[in-house]
């Protein structure tokens, strides 16, 4: 649309029709752009306009005013406003506050209260944690990840230490276990358990990538896993159980050979502690079972952070988890007590953490809040203090995939103004 000053009479009548004011087209058919802009109330009180108008032209005058400054804006887009007032040879008088009037003094204030330049409203930029109840805070997730890594490392070192203390199976036969009495050993069962574990971890990782609040949820996962492995260090260390079955082939003991021991630790870490990768030939880490922890925990997280209606997905994961745990026992690779204790610790810690995280009242230390007496309450507060409310299950493609597909809506007026 070209500027109003440059309008011809037919443009004016087109505009009047557009605005729904056809009644004026006949009376104003001689008027072109500048004349339109010069219309005033007096014109509407005299013939011929007074015959046509019902409100002495007030509505039309308002529309003209709007027209005037929008076209003025277009004209001065990108220019320095002060200069443009003089440069374009406006008919109007430039008032002190920068508003334009077309020759009619309006007591120093803009006519109809309209300013012709946009008013800048300063919005204070809030920090992310004030803007949203679920701030991302990747730094905290990084801290949680480091914590989990430290716990894994400590567990590996501990396994290596405990290995030296395991009594040989000739001296101390496997302890009597009710499950072993009922079920004989099945050789290939442990591989099934580890495959299930890897599947569940893979599924959980994919799901985690698709979550919107992945930093918060990742933080929780790392913290819980780290704490469980830390507890595992303690229980492994204080009392050493003998091997659960005579089929175990434990690596020879290296008494005091630190270099060889550290190499073993590296190998264990690299293999993820799985027997399938051949990295786990160390004995002694029986109470409690790390495999059960991973199977249970990944299932709990999968179920918690996926839509409720995917019941088939939850059932599949539950089956994977249950079969995996059963196969641990079937392979006689852990005592029943290891599995039971591991399940208990995992579920209790998970539910405890999430109940605390979901209730604002439980995040503060108070006499009625007994949960604040756990030793990990301060790290918990550090991680969850800015999370206000229950983390919703929202999904979003990860960053890289997002930039590939641009689904952003373009708001043409705003975008073009900023450019």
């Amino acid at each position: 649309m070209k500027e109003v000053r440059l309008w011809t009479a037919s443009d004016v009548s087109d505009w009047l029709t557009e605005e729904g004011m056809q009644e004026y087209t006949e009376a104003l058919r001689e008027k072109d752009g500048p004349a339109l802009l010069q219309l005033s109330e007096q014109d509407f009180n005299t013939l011929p306009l007074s015959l046509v108008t019902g409100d002495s032209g007030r509505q039309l005058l308002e529309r003209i005013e709007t027209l005037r400054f929008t076209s003025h804006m277009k004209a001065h887009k990108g220019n320095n406003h002060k200069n443009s007032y003089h440069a374009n040879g406006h008919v109007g008088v430039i008032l002190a506050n920068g508003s334009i009037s077309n020759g009619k003094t309006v007591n120093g204030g803009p006519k109809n209260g309209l300013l012709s330049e946009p008013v800048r409203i300063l919005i204070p930029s809030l920090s992310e944690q004030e803007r949203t109840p679920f701030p991302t805070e990747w730094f905290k997730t990084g801290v949680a990840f480091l914590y989990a890594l430290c716990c894994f490392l400590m567990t590996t070192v501990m396994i290596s230490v405990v290995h030296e203390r395991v009594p040989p199976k000739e001296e101390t036969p496997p302890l009597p276990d009710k499950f072993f009495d009922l079920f004989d050993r099945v050789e290939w069962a442990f591989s099934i358990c580890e495959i299930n574990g890897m599947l569940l971890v893979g599924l959980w990782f994919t799901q985690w990538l698709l979550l919107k609040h992945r930093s918060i949820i990742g933080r929780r996962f790392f913290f819980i896993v780290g704490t469980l492995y830390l507890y595992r260090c303690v229980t492994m260390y204080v009392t050493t159980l003998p091997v659960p079955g005579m089929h175990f082939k434990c690596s020879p003991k290296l008494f005091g050979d630190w270099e060889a021991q550290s190499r073993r630790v590296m190998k264990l870490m690299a293999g993820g502690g799985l027997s399938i990768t051949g990295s786990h030939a160390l004995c002694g880490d029986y109470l409690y079972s790390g495999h059960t922890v991973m199977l249970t925990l990944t299932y709990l997280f999968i179920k918690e952070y996926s839509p409720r209606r995917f019941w088939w997905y939850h059932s599949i994961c539950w089956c994977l988890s249950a079969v995996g745990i059963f196969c641990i026992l079937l392979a006689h690779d852990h005592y029943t007590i290891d599995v039971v204790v591991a399940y208990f610790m995992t579920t209790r810690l998970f539910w405890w953490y999430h109940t605390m995280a979901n209730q604002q009242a439980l995040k503060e230390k108070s006499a009625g809040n007994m949960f604040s007496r756990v030793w990990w309450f301060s790290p918990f507060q550090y991680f969850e203090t800015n999370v206000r409310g229950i983390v919703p299950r929202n999904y979003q493609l990860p960053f890289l995939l997002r930039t590939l597909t641009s689904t952003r809506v373009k708001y043409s007026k705003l975008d073009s103004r900023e450019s």
Partner: protein
Amino acid sequence: MAQTQLLDEQDDGQIGECHVMVTVEDRTHPQTPPTGRTHPYQDTPPFSQVDDQPKDSKLRGFRRIRKNQDYVHITMAKSSISRLPSEWWKTGIAFIWAGLNLVLTTVMITIVHDRVPDKSVSPPLPDKFFDYVPRMEWAFRVTEVIGMILVILWFIQWLSLKYRAIVGRRFFFLQGLLYMYRMVTMYITTLPVPSMHMECAPKLQNNSHEKLQRVYQLVSGAGLSITGSHRMCGDFLYSGHTVMLTLTFLFIYEYSPRSRLWTVYHVICGLLSTMGVACILLGHEHYSLDVVVAYFITSRLFYWYHTMANNQALRGSPHNYLNRVWWSFMFSFLEKNVKLSVPCTFSWPISVPSVSFKNPCRSYSKVQSSREE
């Protein structure tokens, strides 16, 4: 209006016949004038005859008006007493639950005893604590003495609590639950004896009569070695002594005031408890693992239960993961009518109405007494 007419008639009757109304007999029926003039409202309710002063005739009329209207029922909020009902029968059920679990545990100990591998076949497992600290003979007796002291202290404290039904219920339930878990862990995997000094009673393979006798002996001796009732092995994971020591201390701490004087009491009980647990290990009667696991399970269960009980907001919330434990139905049965966290108040066990004083634990005596009455 009929009623104003009534008043007018009454007034007329009063004024006109006042000299007649002085007589006593007529006082019983102030509404009906002594002349026997019939009124439309002959059947007057008794309460409006109570007041027979002349100037209250209008009032009487108002009362009569009121009697014909419906009363508006305003529900008052229930007083806090009914939010902490005693319900001794629930305490009785919890007591039966605890008793049942104790007996079953004893039976389980007897069963497990037969599965314990012999000392020569399965030597004691390597234990970090045992590596550092040699055995002391007297230590286990100290543990049991401390355990008895703590139980007696807790019992006395429990008797002096005001809401002893609720608190007792909680204690019995938690104790029963812990012993039930203990049954499971004892049974599924049997640990060998922790130390060569332990003298286990001989195994009775199929002699059920003897086994029953052993069960009875164990129950009557409360499972303590001091009473000579506990000569059976195999109940190592996890340690029942630790459970009792920890649980009594937690309850003592929770249901007593927090003032400075009481802190001394708490510290003493805490020290006793810790010493008792340490002496278990000193006496090489349990593995360190047994003690660690027992402490962990007891404290977590205690905190879990009390958080569920004290936070009303959690009870109906869909995001309450605490009630995913299997015993949450038992919890809701026991704590359904307890709507507040149990305040710490003491009262004499034998209720003598004139003497029973409610001694609040904190100095907010005004608030507390007005809240409970």
